């Protein structure tokens, strides 16, 4: 089974290092508006959720793309956008159940998490360990699995 970018919101401190890391590595700029991961914050409650592409399968973004610009990278499992053939119809943004497909105005491009080609940089920079990159196989602790099941449940409800 491929690895997934696993989010544990209860561990997120809302520091937004992931956003800066992401935008810097993809664009050379420290600009949260150009990041492919976006931290949703509930300041009062101290709850933060780093929203990022779930690399769905089947993926709604891929289903709606008229040009075939979105496809799954066979080795990383990431849904990737081929900017060359994208016509910026934004169907993928409308279709994304998680709001994790973005439009980068500066580059005039659709952007989304590409798992950094199989080694996500945000995970390495996350101090709170809210982000991890692992395969969710039976070897993973049951607590983690229970949390994953919870997230899955919520996500399915949203869809």
């Amino acid at each position, binding site marked *: 089974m491929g690895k997934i970018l696993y989010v544990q*919101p*209860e561990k997120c401190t809302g520091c937004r290092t992931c956003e800066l890391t992401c935008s810097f590595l993809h664009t050379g700029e420290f600009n949260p508006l150009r990041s492919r991961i*976006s931290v*949703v914050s*509930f300041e009062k*409650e101290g*709850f*933060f*959720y780093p*929203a990022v592409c779930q690399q769905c399968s089947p993926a*709604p973004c891929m*289903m*709606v793309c*008229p*040009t075939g*610009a979105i496809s799954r990278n066979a080795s990383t499992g990431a849904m990737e956008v081929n900017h*060359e*053939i*994208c*016509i*910026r*119809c*934004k*169907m993928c*943004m*409308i*279709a*994304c*159940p*998680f*709001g*994790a*497909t*973005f439009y980068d105005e500066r580059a005039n491009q659709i952007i989304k998490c590409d798992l950094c080609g199989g080694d996500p940089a945000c995970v390495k920079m996350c101090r709170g360990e809210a982000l991890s990159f692992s395969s969710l196989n039976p070897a993973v602790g049951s607590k983690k699995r229970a949390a994953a099941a*919870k*997230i899955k449940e*919520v*996500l399915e*409800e*949203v*869809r």
Partner: protein
Amino acid sequence: MKLIIDGREVSAYPGETILEVCRRENIFIPTLCYHPAFKGQGVCRMCMVELEDENGNRRMVASCTYPVQEGLKIVTFSAKIDKVRKNIIRLLASRAKGSDYIQDLAGQYGVEPLDLPGLDNEKCILCRLCVNACKLMGSSVLAAVWRGIDKKISTPYEEAAEECIGCAACYEVCPTGAIEMKEENGQRIIWNKVFNLVLCQHCGKAYATEEQIALVERKTGISLPALCEACRSQNLAGRLKNFSG
């Protein structure tokens, strides 16, 4: 298969066009009516290259439509090609007086547009990229109408077309900025059609047309909450918060 491009041996796959091979090999060929999302159209002729036979005779072809063949000898730049391209740009710049993109191109190629009257606001070069985009989206409302100097791109009878979903993909692919789109007061106006934009239930942002959302729902079979992208992740986070709290 092997080709010789500008004296260099290059590999190509059957079914590819000369232009596709050149792009992959980083050999620059200017284009106007080509977009990698669509098939080459052979409309603008900017992408002309020369093919050379065994006897050294050359003929010009449009690289965006010409399929590769084993041993093809291709010349991508010559005095003749340069002249053809300059002529094309001169004519397009004489027509599309209102397009900065085309006028800049004329400047780059050092050509003077002809002085033709009544074209000061014209931007369209009839490259048909918008027609292709519209077709791919499944709407197919754009086409070239009329003939000769009256030819233009339009919806049927220049009226608001029923199948138009207001996606603006045509606007996005147009290289010359010829397509007008206005967005104000929660409405999007394009090709004479007025769309009421759907407002995000949470923040009120106008984020898509009803028709776009209907198409997405039809294609995915998922019914979407009326939330913009940002509010969608916010909504999700809110639910997770309640779960963990």
